């Protein structure tokens, strides 16, 4: 893992340095102008959050039904990372909305469910930290519940009437906007991988420390 980590970290850093240059060269959107460029960091942060939730959900299922320490560590790491990416989405979104809609926040279906999803994973992290014995199983159940909420967040704009742009925006992007967008998505996926490797390694070391404490007590 150490052999892979350094190149992954270097590529992630390089991509995040290159991304703003590609975004700066992308054309302006006709109605929103300059502020629409927040899109290139806002949407990929949600994609990264959904991916982290997917990893957390699958690992949680494995841990719940097979009690695997490795799956539990991955689930714990992915839940924490989902909170970080969710925070990025929840901060960059209102900065975009303030200019595009004239308000920082709107209690419509999309935004409200997205906030609830973030709070679900914050609760998962808190359960693990303060839940005591057995909290890993409870946090795994919360992770699976969070995974079930993701389709509602994504499809909310197509189900309910909201002021948020529709999901059809991304597949219909022109090439000049699509290139920087998908490059940013790739950069975020690399950042997710970096975070995951770091956080899983921390979990491993914490497990080793717990074993050492047990050996010391015996």
């Amino acid at each position, binding site marked *: 893992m150490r052999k892979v980590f350094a190149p992954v970290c270097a590529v992630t850093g390089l991509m995040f340095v290159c991304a703003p240059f590609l975004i700066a060269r992308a054309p302006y959107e006709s109605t929103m102008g300059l502020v629409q460029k927040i899109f290139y960091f806002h949407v990929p942060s949600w994609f990264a959050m959904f991916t982290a939730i997917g990893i957390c959900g699958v690992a949680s299922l494995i841990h719940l039904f097979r009690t695997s320490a490795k799956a539990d560590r991955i689930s714990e790491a992915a839940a924490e990372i989902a909170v970080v990416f969710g925070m990025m989405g929840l*901060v960059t979104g209102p900065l975009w909305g303030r200019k595009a809609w004239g308000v920082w926040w709107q209690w419509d279906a999309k935004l409200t469910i997205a906030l609830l999803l973030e709070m679900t994973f914050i609760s998962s992290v808190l359960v693990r930290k303060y839940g005591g014995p057995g909290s890993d199983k409870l946090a795994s159940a919360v992770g699976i519940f969070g995974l079930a909420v993701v389709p509602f967040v994504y499809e909310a704009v197509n189900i309910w009437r909201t002021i948020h742009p529709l999901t059809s925006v991304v597949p219909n992007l022109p090439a000049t906007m699509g290139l920087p967008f998908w490059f940013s998505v790739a950069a975020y996926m690399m950042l997710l991988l970096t975070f995951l490797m770091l956080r899983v390694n921390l979990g491993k070391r914490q497990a080793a*420390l717990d074993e050492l404490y047990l050996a010391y007590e015996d």
Partner: protein
Amino acid sequence: MSLRRLLIALTTFVMSTAPAFALQPPAGQSEFVPVDAVPLADQLPAAPLLIAAYAFVWIAATFYIWTIWRRMNKVEDEMRALAQKLPHR
């Protein structure tokens, strides 16, 4: 003589009251005229919002890596301390 005094008094009065009239605020707006677009000077600038959004992403990512690094150091310190105690038992 009295005419001269009267002229001086009148001139003094006019000169002393003129600045008071000159300092009056402009007349209040009598009607509102609608326009289709917000004047350019009143529009919310996009650049600070864009910069704030990108800066937040960078700061959040750096902060998260720093918290992992800090937790890792704490775990390693505890492991070293415990490893030193174990062989003596």
